[in-house]
Each structure stands twice: as C-alpha cells, then as structure tokens.
C-alpha cells in the first residue's frame, strides 16, 4: 500500500446541523451540496416524494428532474449525482436491506442511469440525518465532501495530497478521520479513480468497513459512467460518518413484524442455500458453469454461449480463491453473504505492482465479461483486471464487453497493431487487455479511444478507419450507448426485450427472463412475454425504491415454493417485502401495490428520457448480435438449431439454401419478432406505439404533474 503522508485539508465551505432523527424509515430531509458555489443546504422531503417516489431511485429521479434542464448533458455543472437508500435501507433484521441507489445523467447514454450498490454509505447517510444526498456543480479544484452526522458538520474541502484511486483513497480517508477503531465501522467513502476521469465508463465505489479484515472494502455502482460524472465534478471522495448503528436505528413502525420476516428468511438461507445456489460459499460465480451449460455464457463477444475451457473459471476455482468462513455481507444482517473477496492478492502489473491487496469479487458479471467474453479462461488475469477496474473506477461490465468488441474488430481486420499502438488485442490475450486497462487509467494510447465505450468506438472506427458501419452496429453489444451485461440472449425473445425495452440500457437488473422463456417455455405468446416484461421490471424497480438487494428475493427460495401457483415470483418472499415495507413505514400495502408504486417511478423515468431527447421506440433497438447469428461462422456453430427454426417456423428448406441465405432469412424473421414484441410490451405498459407513456397512464399512476404531461404531449 502506498505510504500515507500527513493530510492537508482546507475547508472551503461548512454547514452545521442538528441531525434529524429517523422516523419510520425517513429523516424527512435531503442534503444538497453544490461544489461550484460551495452551497450546502437542507431540503424537506415532501408528501408527494414519499407517496409517489418512495425513496432510493425514486427520490433520485425526483431531485434530478428538478435540478436539471431539458438540454442538460452529463458534463454540465447542473447535472447531479443523487444517492439515496430508501425507507427500508438500514434495516438489519432482514438480509439485503442496505443498498444505495445512485442516479445521474450518463456520459454513455445521455439519459438517466440508475445503479444499485452495496456498501454502507446510503444507510449511514440516513443515520447521519439525510434521506438523500444531491451533489451538483463542478469544483474549481479537486475537493472532498465530508458529512459528519456525529458532530453535525458538513464540509467541502480541498485535500491536495489525498490520492484518487479507490484502494488508496478509501484507506487514506478512513485512517485520517477515524478517531477510534469503532469510528471506522460507521464511516463510508464514495470514490471513483483515475480511469473514471479518462473514460466514459467510470464507476463509483462505495466502501464498507470489514471488521474481520480490519480494512475497507468496496462495492461498485458500476453502470452508466456515474464515476465519470463524479470525477468531472472534480470530486475525489465523499465521506459519511454516523453514530453507531443499532438494530432500531431505522426506527420502524412495527419492529416485530420485520423480525418475523427476517427470522423466516434467515432460516431458509441456513437450511437451503447449500443445496440451492451456495451464495455463502461462492456468491454469483456459480452462474459461470450454469450459463455455459445452457449456452448462455458470452464467449468471444457474445458470438457463442459456451466454451470447452469454461471449467477453468467455474465456481470451484473461485471457492479456492475466496477466503471462506467470513461474514461477507455488504450490509449488516445479510446472512446470504455473497460479497466474497480474495485476500492477499499480489498485484502483478502497473502502478501498484507488488502491493498486496484485497480484491472484492470477482462476481459473475466480471468473470464472464473480462473472462469468457474476451476469451480469457484464466483466473489470475481476471483478478488483476477486477482489482484495477475497481481502483481506477472503471465498470468491469463495460470494460469487458467493450474489450470483447475491440478483440472482434481486431480479428476481423478493422483494427491492427498500428491502430492499437502495438497492442495485439486478440481473444485470449490477457496481457493486452490488462495493458489496455492501464492505458485507460493513465489516459494513454488506444485506451483513450476504447474508454469512450462501444457506441463512440463504432463512430470512430467508421470515420477514421473506413470500417463497415453495418457490421460494427451488428456486433457492437451496446444499446442506448450502454454496454450489455453478460448473458447471451439470441434464443430468448423475452430477454432481448429485457435488455432493449428498458430505461437505462441493457443491464439485467430490470428483467432476467431467459430461463422462464427459453428453457421453461413459460412465456410462449407475445401477451405472456409482455406481461413478464411488465411485471418483472416493475417488481425489480421496487427494490431500488426501498433500499433492497435483489438477490435474497430469488437466489434462495423456501422449500414449499414449488407448490405455489407462480413459483417464479417466489410468493412467500413477495409477502415478506409487503411486511417489511408496512412494518417500516407504517403504510399498509398489498402485494399489487409494489407494482403500481414502481410503475409511477418507472414511467416517470421514461418521461425523463423523453424530456432529454431520447426514450422513444427507435431508442429501444438492439444490435443484431443479441438477436441471432451475425456471421456465417456463428450460424454454422449451431446449424441444427437454426435450420430447425427455418424449417419448422418459416417453412423453408435449409438444404436448398446457402449459409448466407439462411442467415438473412433468420434475421428477417427475428427482427420482425422483436418489433412485434415492442408493440405488445408498449401496449401492456400503457404507452403509445412510439413508447411514450399515455396521459391516461400518467393519471392512473398519479404522476400527471403539468411539467410531466407537457413532455409527453409533444409526442402524442
């Protein structure tokens, strides 16, 4: 670890306050910080905010809507980063109840991005007196923001000798500010890194202090480049400190009701996790082999869904790497404890070569993204990339999918050594991928271009190298400007919609329908798919309104779930969430209300995108690589499957067709299916054929505010 010197801190602005106490999950106040004007202020939480926007992502969207103009772009000073946990965030009796939600206008998509992240920041922010933190402005010089709920003091400070990369700044500030060992437990730092400022794919790291390891660890708000916005505002870190967390810190209305739900889930996890997903042992890494077995693991830029070398990066490999037996929850009370880490990793390359560090993860998305998708079937470089992505503040998913695209371009002759500055970026070349990452961290070479993300790389390669735009649009796995997360969707029309018919772009946290659709065949009609693409995105949105993690909903299930009518929804857990929300807030709800609460926020976000100049039908298009085989090689790798479809569905005779003709016929059919899916889903969601929420939908949801209606009316 780099040596920590004495820290010089110069206060630019100061605000003192009496921390509001939490009542039924809310403090009733949000914190506004403007780093240009050095303004710090409290804002009240209104009834409309609580009734319609609930908290978390809902509060973020509401505050952002009122903070920006129609023409605001990601790097304008008025763009904001809003962090909020939600009313249930900070509950310690139920697993997965401490998430933070972050929203901002994204440098990748130019629309609003939301990211759900672990770590302790959101709950501690609440216990320091604030339901949300809204950061606006762009500092003249690098700053840190410190929110100290113990002393009731907030400062914007210059701290010139504080480093930028996450594994350094996190340790540094906690060492500098904690007055006792116990202080460290109740501090959390948000940081990004040098890579975030040189790319558009910057992530934010949210720390938690790991008592067993006696060190901070970091969870990532990865998607959409919010770390890039953070560094563009010249913020090195935001620190929060609160009084010690107790079991009743969130002051729920009915603690016994919450405890009962918690006990039920703790028992389930204890009894069944070992025979279900083994989250406590290997976290989400169990998915690698499963996805490979079902031909869903992205390999070589999503060309294929499996690879014979995938066992080299499967769960058992990571089980040996992860330190076992530690309570790896990312918030107190999470007994599903999937947030594993590799301890004592010696960094092999780059500026931190030789340092011994903790690597947080890797999780499935990282293993699949920087591993199989780039043809890297070796755990060591995956760990190296995982560490550097986090400390440089770069999203592992965008890096992985972006690098896979670069590798395919290299192998297809769009790029060569001259264009990449000597990097031989072929599939499987881990050293080149690591070097590319360092270039992003240091703003050098080809890393400057690759760090802009796939959408801008495509434009650059066409403009500068005369590349074929159609080919790049087919193979570049981005939609709305955001890189795909790591699942192959070619055989699941519903999941093509799960990625495409979204607000923020192709991230699986809106809907993951592949098993329901492709494997279990539970969604055979367009109406079935549309219903699923209504229900699941709304249900998952709800987690982000309240401060919940999605994993304890369906990566564990009760043994009698199999006897229920709708086992895919895990009805007992849905009831738990009803109990938790009502038990915390005192507001009685039914399970149907979860959906309508989310619908209001989801539709508001759609309107927000339209307001910013996007959010219409054409913006929901997806690259053909996500729908079917682009190349002859891809088709011929699964000839039997595709020929069968041509024969049975289209009535064609594959024996009489060339592979090129078969590729074209399949494509015409599949693209047509996707357009039909759009129509069905928009209708189910109460939108026009151009994906605009209808006024009657806004009225039904109670979000027909004049400025919201004015946005949609321009498109009706």
């Amino acid at each position, binding site marked *: 670890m780099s040596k920590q010197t004495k820290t010089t801190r110069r206060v630019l602005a100061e605000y003192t306050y009496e921390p509001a106490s939490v009542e039924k999950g809310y403090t009733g106040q949000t914190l506004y910080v403007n780093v240009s004007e050095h303004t710090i202020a409290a804002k009240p939480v209104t009834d409309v905010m609580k009734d319609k926007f609930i908290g978390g992502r809902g509060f973020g969207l509401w505050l952002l809507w009122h903070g920006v103009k129609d023409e605001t772009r990601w790097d304008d000073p008025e763009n904001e980063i809003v962090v909020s946990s939600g009313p249930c965030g900070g509950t310690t009796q139920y697993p997965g109840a401490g998430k933070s939600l972050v929203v901002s206008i994204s440098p990748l998509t130019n629309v609003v991005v939301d990211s759900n992240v672990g770590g302790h920041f959101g709950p501690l922010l609440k216990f320091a007196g604030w339901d949300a933190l809204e950061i606006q402005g762009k500092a003249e010089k690098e700053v840190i923001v410190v929110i100290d709920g113990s002393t009731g003091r907030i400062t914007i400070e210059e701290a010139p000798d504080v480093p930028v990369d996450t594994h350094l700044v996190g340790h540094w500030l906690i060492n500098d500010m904690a007055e006792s060992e116990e202080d460290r437990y109740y501090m959390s730092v948000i940081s990004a890194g040098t890579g975030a400022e040189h790319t558009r794919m910057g992530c934010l790291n949210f720390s938690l202090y790991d008592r067993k390891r006696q060190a901070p660890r970091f969870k990532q708000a990865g998607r959409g480049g919010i770390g890039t916005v953070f560094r563009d505002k010249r913020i090195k870190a935001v620190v929060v400190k609160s009084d010690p967390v107790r079991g009743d810190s969130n002051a729920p209305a009915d603690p016994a009701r919450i405890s009962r739900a918690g006990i039920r889930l703790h028992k389930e996890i204890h009894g069944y996790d070992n025979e279900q997903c083994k989250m406590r042992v290997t976290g989400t890494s169990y998915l690698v082999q499963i996805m490979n077995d079902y031909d869903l693991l992205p390999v070589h830029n999503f060309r294929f869904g499996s690879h014979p070398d995938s066992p080299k990066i499967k769960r058992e490999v990571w089980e040996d790497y992860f330190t076992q037996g530690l309570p790896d929850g990312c918030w107190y009370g999470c007994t599903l404890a999937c947030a594993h880490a590799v301890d004592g990793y010696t960094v092999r390359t780059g500026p931190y070569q030789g340092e011994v560090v903790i690597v947080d993860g890797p999780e499935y998305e990282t293993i699949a993204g920087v591993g199989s998708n780039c043809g890297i079937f070796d755990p060591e470089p995956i760990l190296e990339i995982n560490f550097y992505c986090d400390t440089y503040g770069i999203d592992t998913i965008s890096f992985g999918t972006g690098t896979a695209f670069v590798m395919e371009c290299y192998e297809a002759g769009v790029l060569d050594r001259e264009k990449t500055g000597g990097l031989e970026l072929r599939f499987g070349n881990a050293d080149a991928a690591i070097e590319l990452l360092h270039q992003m961290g240091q703003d050098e070479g080809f890393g400057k271009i690759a760090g802009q993300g796939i959408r801008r790389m495509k434009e650059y390669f066409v403009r500068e190298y005369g590349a074929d735009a159609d080919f790049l649009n087919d193979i570049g796995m981005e939609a709305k400007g955001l890189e795909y997360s790591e699942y192959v969707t070619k055989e699941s029309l519903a999941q093509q919609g799960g990625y495409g018919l979204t607000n923020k772009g192709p991230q699986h946290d809106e809907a993951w*329908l592949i098993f329901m659709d492709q494997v279990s065949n539970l969604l055979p009609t367009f109406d079935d798919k549309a219903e699923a693409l209504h229900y699941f995105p709304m249900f998952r949105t709800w987690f982000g309104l309240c401060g919940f993690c*999605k994993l304890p909903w369906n990566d564990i299930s009760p043994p009698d779930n199999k006897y229920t009518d709708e086992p895919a929804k895990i009805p007992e857990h849905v009831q738990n969430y009803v109990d938790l929300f009502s038990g915390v807030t005192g507001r009685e709800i039914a399970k149907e209300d979860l959906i309508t609460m989310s619908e209001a926020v989801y539709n508001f976000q759609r309107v927000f995108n339209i307001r910013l100049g996007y959010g219409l039908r054409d913006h929901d298009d997806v690259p053909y690589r996500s729908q079917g085989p682009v190349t002859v090689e891809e088709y011929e790798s699964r000839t039997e499957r595709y020929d069968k479809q041509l024969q049975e569905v289209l009535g064609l005779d594959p024996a009489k067709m060339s592979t090129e003709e078969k590729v074209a016929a399949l494509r015409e059919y599949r693209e047509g299916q996707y357009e039909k899916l759009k129509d069905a889903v928009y209708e189910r969601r109460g939108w026009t054929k151009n994906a605009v929420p209808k006024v009657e939908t806004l009225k039904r949801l109670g979000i027909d505010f004049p400025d919201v209606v004015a946005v949609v009316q321009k498109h009706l």
Partner: protein
Amino acid sequence: MIRVNNRDEIEWQDGLTVSDLLERCRYTFAHIIVKIDGEVILPEEYDTRVIPDGAQVHVIHLIAGG
C-alpha cells in the same frame, strides 16, 4: 414419446428416471421444480421416479442471474 416444457419431444425409454431426463436435456441448474403430469416431484425422488410414456413433464427453472 414424452413432452418437456410443452415444447420438446423426447424419445421415451423404459425405466427413464427424472435424473436421466435432466441429464439428457443437460438441465444442470439445481434451483428447479419438476412436475410429471402436474404432480410435483421431490428432489430426493429424481433418481428413482420413473417417467411414464406419454407424460407431460415440466422442468421449471427458477429465475437466477443478476
């Protein structure tokens, strides 16, 4: 012939167990529910429960991922 998930026709053979079927379909995911003609089969019966010819089998994979 048996029909799996209302779609896939699988050739029936004498003594075909649930485990045999899962292996044949490469259904390796542990978090599943198996029904034969609407009856839920418990995991401890997968090795011994024989699937009759003409059966409608459902292998429902619970959602995972992300």
